[in-house]
Each structure stands twice: as structure tokens, then as C-alpha cells.
């Protein structure tokens, strides 16, 4: 759960995304403040935070759409936006919802984006467009004008555009926005599939559920600052199960817990609490009993990831979506 030291980004090629001191201000508003992201290659990185916490602006800076006021960022060790031409063909992105020409069909829109990529080969365009549409289940609606698409179909076309080429990195900004439960499941499945193929995935969301189910890593944003980031497992230890012990003799209980090396045992008026920290409850109870401490009750308290984030961000997430 440590922030990467400064200047690590450009020297560590195993990081798909790295930034140091990334800062952006729009007018007087500090949108992104001193951000140091580290997204390992091959990870599925959940970038979560409440709406308006600076996630999209960060993504725009990572992709070279917005110039940071200070700080730097790099994709695959190449500085952005300077290396955009070389790096972006390896990156598929969905930023702040899909956007296409309303009077062109899905296929025609993808063909235009493919034409805009100097590294793509026109000879294989049709095949690649077809398979991208297949992958998001839009083949049947490929010839329809974009304006006739439903919200979900538009979102899928946006994902299809990100999949025109095999990518090393997919940046998906709120990819399940506007999708029905079935669509949401499909997108999760797709992301899992792509991750299994070795693609690094950077997915932003204000939905905790997505992160818990999909990601190997998370970064948590609030008010433009990165509160924490790291492997999901590591984060879970932060919210490791705690216990609550009722005993008439708190002082003796604390003594026993100290010998067990419970990290944060503390006593209040009527109970002793602490972190389980890998200790089995029965071992603690056995030790207490063996030391002659009366145990009225012993309750393991399992905190959710949600609780941890609420604690970190000071506000809740929209769990229901």
C-alpha cells in the first residue's frame, strides 16, 4: 500500500501506466492534484472514486487529450503526450461515453476511426471491424445508423472501437454505463477474457461492485487526490476482519492479546476490539481462556470493502448503480 517513489514511472517498463505529480487545474478548481499512478502491466486496475473526483480528467491526461499543468505521465514507459503517435495504437480507449457520427452506420464509424490510425492496414480493416463488432455482439446492427442505436448499443460500439486492434492496454471509462444487467455481465465477461489474454485493463468506475469482481488492483480517488492504490488483496488486509470481545477483565485480556501480537487491540467501556490479522478466532479464545480471562462473548466483525472505502473517502459509493 505504498505510493511509488517519484521518477519511477519512466524507468519501470513493467508499468503500463505511470504518473508522477500529475496536476491539473481548470480555472480555480483543482481537478487533479499531485497524482502518482502505478498500473502494472497485465493487471486489471480499478480506478474508483465518486463522480467528480477527477477520474476522467486523469484519463484524458494519460491519453494526451489534456495537458497536465505539472507532473508527467507515461504509457509503457513512453512519455505522454509526446509519444502519443507511437503508443496510442497499442491502447484502446472508451472515454466519457461513446461518441460517433450519428448519420453513419456502426461499420462506417469504425471504418473512419480505423482510417484515422496510421498504423492500421486498410486491407484487413473489414475483417478487424467485423470481429470487433462480433466481440461486442453488434454484428446484426452493424449497418444501422448510429443515431438509431440504443444507449447500450452505443456503449458496445464504443468498446468495439477500442478493440479494432489487439491492444496492450484498454482504458475503459465507466464501461457499463447505460447497460442493462445482461449487458453489464457481458462487458465484465469481456474484460475478464481480455485480461486473461494478457491485456492490461484500466477501468474507471464509481461502482464498487465492478471493482471487487473484476480487478486485481485498485486506486481510490477523492477530490482530485489518489487516496490509496495497490493490489486488491493488499487493500483487503486494510479491512481485515476485526473482533469484539466482551469480558469483565479488559486489562488482562489486553495483556493476552499483546502476547498474541494483535496489532491494534484496544479497550473501551465494555469491550475489547482488535484486528484478527491472520489469527483464527478459536486460537484467541483458547489463549484467553487458558490465561484465565473470562470471555462473555467473542464476535468476529467482517468489514466490507465498502466500509473501507467509506472510511477512506468520507463518503459512500453508489453501490446500487
Amino acid at each position, binding site marked *: 500500500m505504498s505510493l511509488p517513489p517519484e521518477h519511477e514511472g519512466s524507468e519501470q517498463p513493467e508499468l503500463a501506466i505511470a504518473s508522477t505529480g500529475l496536476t491539473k487545474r481548470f480555472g480555480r478548481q483543482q481537478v487533479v492534484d499531485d497524482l502518482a499512478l502505478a498500473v502494472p502491466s497485465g493487471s486489471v486496475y480499478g480506478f474508483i472514486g465518486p463522480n467528480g473526483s477527477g477520474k476522467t480528467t486523469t484519463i484524458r491526461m494519460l491519453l494526451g487529450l489534456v495537458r497536465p499543468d*505539472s507532473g508527467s505521465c507515461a504509457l509503457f514507459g513512453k512519455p505522454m503526450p509526446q509519444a502519443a503517435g507511437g503508443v496510442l495504437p497499442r491502447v484502446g480507449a472508451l472515454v466519457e461515453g461513446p461518441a460517433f457520427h450519428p448519420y453513419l452506420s456502426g461499420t462506417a464509424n469504425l471504418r473512419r476511426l480505423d482510417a484515422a490510425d496510421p498504423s492500421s492496414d486498410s486491407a484487413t480493416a473489414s475483417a478487424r471491424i467485423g470481429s470487433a463488432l462480433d466481440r461486442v455482439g453488434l454484428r446484426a446492427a452493424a449497418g444501422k445508423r448510429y443515431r438509431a442505436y440504443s444507449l447500450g448499443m452505443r456503449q458496445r460500439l464504443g468498446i468495439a472501437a477500442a478493440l479494432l486492434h489487439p491492444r496492450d492496454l484498454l482504458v475503459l471509462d465507466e464501461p457499463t454505463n447505460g447497460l442493462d444487467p445482461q449487458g453489464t455481465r457481458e462487458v465484465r465477461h469481456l474484460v475478464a477474457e481480455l485480461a486473461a489474454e494478457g491485456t492490461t485493463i484500466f477501468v474507471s468506475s464509481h461502482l464498487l461492485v465492478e471493482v471487487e469482481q473484476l480487478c486485481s488492483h485498485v486506486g481510490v480517488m477523492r477530490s482530485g487526490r489518489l487516496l490509496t492504490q495497490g493490489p486488491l488483496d493488499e487493500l483487503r488486509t486494510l479491512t481485515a476482519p476485526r473482533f469484539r470481545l466482551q469480558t469483565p477483565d479488559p486489562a488482562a485480556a489486553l495483556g493476552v492479546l499483546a502476547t498474541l501480537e494483535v496489532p491494534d487491540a484496544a479497550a473501551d467501556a465494555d469491550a475489547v476490539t482488535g484486528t484478527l490479522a491472520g489469527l483464527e478466532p478459536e486460537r484467541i479464545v483458547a489463549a484467553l481462556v487458558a490465561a484465565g480471562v473470562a470471555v462473555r462473548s467473542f464476535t468476529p466483525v467482517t468489514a466490507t470493502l465498502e466500509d473501507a472505502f467509506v472510511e477512506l473517502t468520507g463518503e459512500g459509493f453508489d453501490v446500487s448503480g
Partner: protein
Amino acid sequence: MKAQQQSETRRRTTRLIGAGVIVALLLASLTGLFARGAAADPTLPPLTPTELLNRVATAQVDGMSATFTQRSDLGLPALPSGIGGGDELQSALTLLTGTHTIRVWTAGPQHSRVSLVDDDSESSVIRNGNQVWTWSSEQQKAGHATIDAKTPTARPTGAPSTPAEAIDRLLKAIGPSTEVTASGTGYVAGRPVYQLILAPKDAASLIGQVRLFVDATTYVPLGLRVLDRGGAEAVSLLASTVDFSVPAAGVFEFTPPAGVEVTELDAKASDHPTGTAKSRPETKTVGTGWTTVLVASTGTTKVTDATAKALLDSLPAVSGAWGRGRLLSTSLVNVVLTDDGRVAVGAVTEDRLYAALAR
């Protein structure tokens, strides 16, 4: 962090300077298109004014194609369009205002063409041997005259007058009433020129001076500027492009196109391209040189056209021993229109006009 911000600031500054340089270069190229004459004056072998005038008088070129720009700023009030007085008045007035382009071709004394190039029309006078044609695209009319073969060397009245010839005539007319000084060198149409200043000695002249530009190689006049007493430019005629090679013979050929009305011109009175041979009013001249006054009797005292009358009434009323009338005053020319139908015109003070009318 601080170093990073500094490098960021430096980067922005560099970018800003780069932007400034690009814009400056582009603006410079834009101005360069129009201000090529910014070079220093050329160094030419010195000539006295008399030597220069002599060379101008004897200048001979085999041929020439040139474009002249004529500008007039006589301080005339802007005239409303569609004013009464017909096409002739209209076309006479247009030459007195604004900017005009004149294309000139010559190939010896027998071949010349002058075309007044306007926005979407053209009028020309073309001399091809003993044939003289006039053309007006606006009226879709052509005029034709044949020059008397017995006097081929004399300048026929019907022959076109190129700007160069006009300047030539001017030089002959100056005589002793003029102070001539040489005034350095310069460039006209990209060619080195001598500059001559001709200043009338008579204080009654409204013309302050005429600056004449003479090509340093051929001694052909390439332009002039007429300044009023206050030193402001009233009229200028300057070549913008000059080519001293002989133009193609086709330039002087004119065949009236099918469906165009052709008028046979009276060769004596065809100084006007339109060739209207109306009965001329009785005229006399008073004085000589720069301060010549032309007095004409129009024979009519009534102005019928309402607009023209309104225009006339707007002019200041003047009176004196010579009678009563209206004064049209410009920086270079004064005109008195008397109530008894006389007109006095001259590049002189109005008092000189009154004196001429009193005669």
C-alpha cells in the same frame, strides 16, 4: 517539484516564442508581397534637370507593355451614384475619383493601345497603323476612324494618348513658368528611376509641384505625382509593371465582334473614347502655362435635371463684378458656374477665375 514547474514554464515560454516567430514570419511575408519597394534608393549617374529633360524628350523604345495605377484625391465630395447627367458625365466623374488601372501597350509610333481597366468593364483606344478603334465594353460599342495617310508623322487627334505621351506633352508645355529641380532617385515598378520636381512659379496655381519619375535606362517617364499647394497628393499616375519588349502584334488588332454597334468617328473630334461628336460649346483660354483658365459658354442657363440642380444648389454661391454663380472648389481645380451659363475652369485660385470671367 519546483524544478519541474520551472521547466514547464520554460517550455511554455519557448512555445510562445515559437508561436510569435511563426506569426511574425507570416505577417512579414504578407507585407513583403506589397512593400517590395522598401529597398534603399538606387545609385545612378548624376544628371542635371536639363540633361534629364532632354533625354526624356528624345527617349525612344521599340515597344512597351505597362500597367499604370491612377489615383485621384481632389477632395471632391463623394457623389451619389445614379446622378443625372448621363453616361458621359458619369465616366468623366469616375476618372476624377478613386483608383483606376490603365494598361498600355506601344510598338513604335504607329501602334499603341490604352485600356482603362475597371472592375467589370474596359474601354480602349487602339491605334494599329492608320486604323484607330475605340471600344467600350459597358456600352458594347466600338468606334472607328482612319488616319489621313498623307500626314502619317503628324500626331493625329484621334490617336490614343498614352500616359507616357501625356507626360511628354506636359514637359513641352512647362516652358519658363516652371522651376525644375532634380530630386534624387527611387524605384517605380521595380525599376530605378530619376526623380524630377516641376514647380509652377505663379503663386496663383493650385498645383504645388509635380514629381516626375523617369526610367533610368530608357528615360521613359514611368509616373508622376501631383501635389497641391499644401503638399498633399491630389493625383498620381504610377506604373506598377513595365516590360520594354515589343508586344505581340495581336494586341493592336481589333475586329468589332458580331452584334456590336460600330460608329464611324470624326477623326478631328475623337479625343473621347466614346466618340460622341456633339457640338462643342464656345471656349476661350485666358493665361498661359500652369495657370491657364478655360472659359466656356454653354449657352444654356437652365439646369433641368433635378438631381443636378440639387447638387448645384448645394455649392456655395459667389458673386463679383463678373456676375453671380456657384463655386466648385477642389484641392487642385476650381470651377465657377455662372448663372448666365458660363463655366470657368482652371488649376488656379478662385480669384484668378473671377478675373478671367471679368475679361
